[in-house]
């Protein structure tokens, strides 16, 4: 059985993390992992809610070495947590917050940990071991699991590090949470597997991002999104020097990429991927809008479908985005991304599908019919909010919003939410998108997007 090590740091003195301006050695990290393993309750499935990225990493490692599986749903609404419990009745959550609001058996991350052991071993993990189940929003309203195994995750992280030139000298700060794939891959697994150090913070405001960047030794890297990048560049007159920028979750405009490169004085790379296949390709947007597949990954095409194959991708995975292959086949390594799959909703890095949202909306008692609409063409870094048209004569807007809040992430709440008498369905009961858009356009009423409760 082949194995790969938990971390690629070469000595026990190597720095795995920066926390409160102090380095954490591999020795400390591994000792803390062992300690947390000894405290974990029964249960094989875990919702890791730690907001401190270092504690998230220790908890994840503790789950891995003890054979537990991390569940990564796309949101943490009350409904999602209930669904996780239905899928895995033994699930418990790990939190570092005093007042966790997850309605689950809860393990509090220990406030103090014993002194580091002298010579903790770096665990070797079997490549076949299931590390995580990542959930996408299924059209039936039920989350669909995607199994992530250790070997594939490690190969992905190493391919990403190789492409970006990240090595043992780097320190990495992320503005994205580690509970989603991009944050997990780029701010936890890539540091682990390249021997780099992760910053424990999860800065939010532009000023915090700058301050926490400045705490790190160079070379340092910022892992972020188009939305955070735009706010950072708009808000901050001076930016700390950075050696590498990474953006993902939504395509970045070349204009913003050039501005970011000029003002940070660092190359900016974008990563393209999907939940099913992991990371697929990268580009340096300021220089070239063509995507290049990660080492050993190629795109393959049969009559109908485009597949991502090779490298860390265990089994050929179909891609549903609109992609133009460049150059000659039969295996492609360069392409243009023309659009995301029409059903996929992505707002500031949070993902769901229209089918899922429509299912949730129509499942609310009192809703006779309803549909979510994506905003038409928005600028890459702008946040395009969703609109919903709903037939629900017995409900007040406030009641409907409250019911939606129970089951969908606040990011996807409709703005505006418009009440109509009926939806323009055709004879077969289908709702042509253009008909819905026409109805929307005809409703010149001011948006009723916020409801005070």
């Amino acid at each position, binding site marked *: 059985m082949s194995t790969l090590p938990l971390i690629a740091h070469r000595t026990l003195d190597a720095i795995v993390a920066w926390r409160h301006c102090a380095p954490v050695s591999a020795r400390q990290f591994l000792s803390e992992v062992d300690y947390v393993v000894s405290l974990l309750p029964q249960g094989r499935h875990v919702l890791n809610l730690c*907001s401190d990225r270092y504690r998230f990493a220790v908890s994840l490692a503790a789950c891995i070495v003890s054979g537990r599986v991390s569940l990564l749903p796309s949101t943490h609404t009350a409904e999602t947590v209930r669904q996780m419990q239905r899928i895995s009745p033994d699930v418990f959550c790990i939190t570092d917050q005093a007042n966790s609001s997850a309605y689950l058996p809860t393990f509090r991350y220990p406030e103090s940990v014993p002194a580091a052991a002298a010579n903790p071993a770096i665990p070797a993990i079997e490549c076949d071991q299931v590390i995580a189940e990542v959930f996408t929003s299924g059209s039936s309203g039920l989350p669909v699991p995607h199994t992530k195994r250790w070997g594939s995750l490690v190969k992905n992280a190493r391919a990403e590090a190789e492409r970006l030139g990240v090595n043992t000298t780097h320190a990495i700060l992320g503005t994205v*949470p580690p509970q989603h794939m991009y944050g997990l891959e780029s701010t936890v697994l890539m540091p682990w597997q390249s021997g780099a150090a992760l910053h424990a*913070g*999860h*800065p*939010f*405001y*532009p*000023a*915090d991002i700058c*301050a926490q960047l400045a705490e790190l030794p160079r070379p340092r890297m910022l892992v972020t999104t188009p*939305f*955070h990048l735009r*706010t950072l560049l*708009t*808000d901050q007159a001076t930016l700390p020097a950075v050696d590498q920028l990474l953006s993902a979750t939504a395509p970045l405009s070349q204009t913003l990429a050039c501005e970011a490169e000029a003002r940070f004085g660092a190359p900016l790379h974008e990563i393209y991927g999907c939940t099913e296949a992991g990371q697929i390709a990268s580009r340096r947007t300021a220089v070239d809008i063509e995507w290049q597949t990660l080492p050993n990954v190629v795109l393959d095409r049969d009559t109908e479908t485009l597949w991502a194959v090779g490298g860390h991708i265990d089994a050929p995975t179909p891609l549903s985005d609109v992609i133009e292959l460049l150059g000659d086949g039969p295996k492609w390594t360069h392409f243009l991304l023309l659009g995301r799959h029409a059903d996929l909703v992505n*707002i*500031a890095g949070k993902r769901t599908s229209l089918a899922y949202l429509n299912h949730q909306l129509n499942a609310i008692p009192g809703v006779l019919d309803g549909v979510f609409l994506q905003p038409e063409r928005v600028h890459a870094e702008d*946040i395009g909010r969703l609109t919903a048209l709903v037939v629900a004569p017995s409900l007040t807007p406030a009641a409907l*919003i*409250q019911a939606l*809040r129970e089951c969908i992430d*606040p*990011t996807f*709440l409709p703005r*505006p939410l418009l009440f109509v008498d009926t939806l323009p369905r055709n004879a077969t009961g289908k709702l042509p998108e253009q008909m819905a858009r026409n109805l929307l356009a005809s409703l010149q009423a*001011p*948006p*009723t*997007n*916020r*409801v*005070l*409760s």
Partner: protein
Amino acid sequence: MSEANPELQNEVAGLIVSALNLDVSPEEIPADTPLYGDGLGLDSIDILEVALVVSKRYGFQLRADNADNVKIFSSLASLTQHIAANKTK
């Protein structure tokens, strides 16, 4: 929470409404209900947009230890107090 500075509070409410295109008037935002979640329903993207406007208008930058921002955004009154205590213009 006292309404120590009603003028500033109205101004802040107006900034929030215009920054986020809310369909409520500034006076309709209650002083003491959460801006987040169940109250006004702002999410973290909104909070960041508000932070940008606040830094432009009042000349100081919002800071937080983590992404929660629970305290400052717990109500219009607390956000106003925070601005009153930190504004440079």
